[in-house]
């Protein structure tokens, strides 16, 4: 079997507003547009990967929140209606997704061997969280690639950002090992926003872009600082500053996705490509691609 490969790593946020604004047939509510900068960012990400062959998408979603370890979707197919419990007016999406159970099991087993608490989720009634569905749709609206969906272990809530990061770096390491051993070509995705302070009101027309901006200057500064590290290949600095960023920007990196992603990419020293940045109900969201396929030497 040939060696597996991570062809790209992506930061790909999941606010349901992006699906809402796009009006795909799977989603019930209808919008007049909105959040174009981010949706065009997703377009650029898709175009960047259009000619890249890969077999599966491995995605960590902060909205499947688990407190008893890390869980993996463990059945080949999940089909249901996903209704966002926070923005049900925007997101009621009929999904039908395929799971690469084999790869999920391989990552699970390596994580278990490494001492992490892990569980395969095999209840067919389980409703996949809207974060995974939103990012899944925006990244690959054709849904023609199987997914591995990993829960967000809330160890940051139980311990600290430092403990969370330690666990997620370990999970990233075994994720990478499992992918390389699998013989498959894979895209890895962390589905999270950057700064994560919401507005607590919603305009009468949710897609009214005249109301959209970052919640505070401090959030903007943190987002730009992180993006500058993304763009200049300074992943280690991101990890180093993760506790301050997560706490001060109330960042959604608290779910562990960004730490896991950077670890899975072996802490890249090459630049990430910023495909887009924008705010959604006040939160900061960046779409970033690390084109690992072009930097194989970096991690050999």
């Amino acid at each position, binding site marked *: 079997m040939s060696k597996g490969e991570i062809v790209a790593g992506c930061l790909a946020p999941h606010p349901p507003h992006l699906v809402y604004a796009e009006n795909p047939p799977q989603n019930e509510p209808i919008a007049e547009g909105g959040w174009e900068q981010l949706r065009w960012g997703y377009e650029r990400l898709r175009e960047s990967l259009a000619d890249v062959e890969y077999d599966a998408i491995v995605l960590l979603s902060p909205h*499947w*929140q*688990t*407190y*008893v*370890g890390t*869980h993996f979707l463990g059945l080949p197919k999940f089909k249901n*209606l996903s*209704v966002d*419990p*926070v*923005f*049900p*007016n925007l997101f*009621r999406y009929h999904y039908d997704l395929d799971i690469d159970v084999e790869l999920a099991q391989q990552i699970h087993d390596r994580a278990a061997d490494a001492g992490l*608490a892990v*569980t395969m*989720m*095999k*209840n067919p*009634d*389980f*409703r996949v*969280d809207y974060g995974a569905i939103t990012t899944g749709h925006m990244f690959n609206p054709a849904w023609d690639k199987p997914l591995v969906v990993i*829960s967000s*272990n*809330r*160890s940051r*809530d*139980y311990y600290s950002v430092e403990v969370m990061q330690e666990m997620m770096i370990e999970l990233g390491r075994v994720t990478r090992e499992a992918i390389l051993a699998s013989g498959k070509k894979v895209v890895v995705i962390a589905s999270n926003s950057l*700064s994560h*302070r*919401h507005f*607590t*009101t*919603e305009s009468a027309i949710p897609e009214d872009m005249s109301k959209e901006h970052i*919640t*505070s*200057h*401090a*959030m903007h*500064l*943190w987002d730009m600082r992180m993006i500058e590290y993304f763009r200049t290949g300074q992943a280690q600095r991101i990890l180093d500053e993760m506790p301050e960023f997560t*706490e*001060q*920007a*109330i960042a959604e990196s608290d779910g562990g996705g960004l730490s896991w992603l950077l670890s899975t990419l072996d802490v890249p020293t090459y630049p990430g490509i910023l495909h887009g940045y924008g705010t959604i*109900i006040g939160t900061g969201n960046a779409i970033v691609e690390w084109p690992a396929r072009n930097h194989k030497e970096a991690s050999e």
Partner: protein
Amino acid sequence: MSDGELIGSYIVPVHPHTVLAPEQNEGWGRLREAYDTAAQRIKESGADLLIIYSTTWPSIIGHQIIADPNPEWVMVDHDFHELGSIPYSFNIDEKFAHAWNQANEKRGLKSRTVAYHGFPIDVGSVVALKLLNPDNAIPAVIVSSNVYANRAETTVLSKACMDVVKATGRKAIAITAMSLSNRMFTKPIEPKDDRIHSLKDDEWNRKILELLGEGRLEDVGQLSRTIHRQIRVNKVVAFKPMWWLSGMNSNRNNLTGEVLAYEALHGAGGAVVHLDPTPSGAGDIEYDEDDVEYFAGERNVLDGAQSENQEIESLSVESPLEVPQKNGPALWEPTESKDSVNSEAAPKPVGAYPHARRVGDLLYLSGVGPRQPGTNAIPGGPIHDADGKPLNYDIKAQTQAVVDNITRILEEAGGTINDVLDVTSFLVDMDRDFQGYNEVWAETLGQVGPTRTTLAIRALPTPIAVEMKVIAKAPKTE
């Protein structure tokens, strides 16, 4: 129709073990038996409404209330999916849900109803309703727990709910679906090995239950922040349910409490507690904060440069309500004369005049604005800051506060709002505010029927948008 009332309150655990696996652990079984006892008591109480505040349904845009009359789906817990699935089909009182939503808005809260096919009812609500109302005989409503809500907002939420309970003559049961300590084991365990995660958590849980067993609900409410720091995992939803439940019970501290069970659920503290409104004589109320009637705070409680204690600090100050001392003229004591009527429950004047004056059969009120007595706060927010910079404000909240102040002055004179004969209203921005002002008028003074004149003026002495000049019938004197 007689006034509605709260006829009981329950605190119940959220995890699915009591529904799906009570036989796997003796403690889980005892919690299930307590749930069944509570269900039987509710059935025998004559309750016609169950009101659930669930900590496992976080919301961001204010509070959300389920208004689908018959939500149906299958619930699977994010962590404990191996225990199985819980199909549900509930009987929701959609009319009450909509009325509560409107009552929330009247009290300045952000709120909306949710009635979408397939909306995922949260695990805490599903467990509570499945076990407390197994045959769906009693209609229910469910409200979310807003992640940014502070104590004032959560308390006002309960007051809005009770407005509707009273107005609709309901005999309601309030239920908080919640854990006590919520630290679970972070690895799978055998059911037989379940216990409270730590001795410290257990000790705090027992102290909370001791207070609740004595009916001292408000004391637990006042300890909420301490409890959160001591035994709560730092999730976004703080230990707010005691604020809501205490508010539902008029912040009473002398209920009759009974702890039906207390056990571990994967390490977290789960308890079934019954709080009966019958006075126990246990404790006195020492309400430690302003008794907020309207929520006017914008909720940017977290800013990048602020500490994690910011939310706590903001809770005790209610700063958005307060008019900075330099934002408006100095306040005066109301003048006294033979026919004057002055009220401690009305805001202080901005000049040398009384709140009202009795002349023959008539009562002439000085111009009444929305400022709150004591705090000088402006419900709905001031129209500009101390530097004159315009601010966004809620004209409906301001108008409602004006009507309330008028009511207080009339009550001081021995009358009621129904005595109002003629009103002259002053608005500083007719184009912006007339509609909202008019809506509140229609629901309040419009029901009384006084004559009315509405004028646009350039400014009022304090940073308010509306003021009313009232002539009312004077109550007969002895």
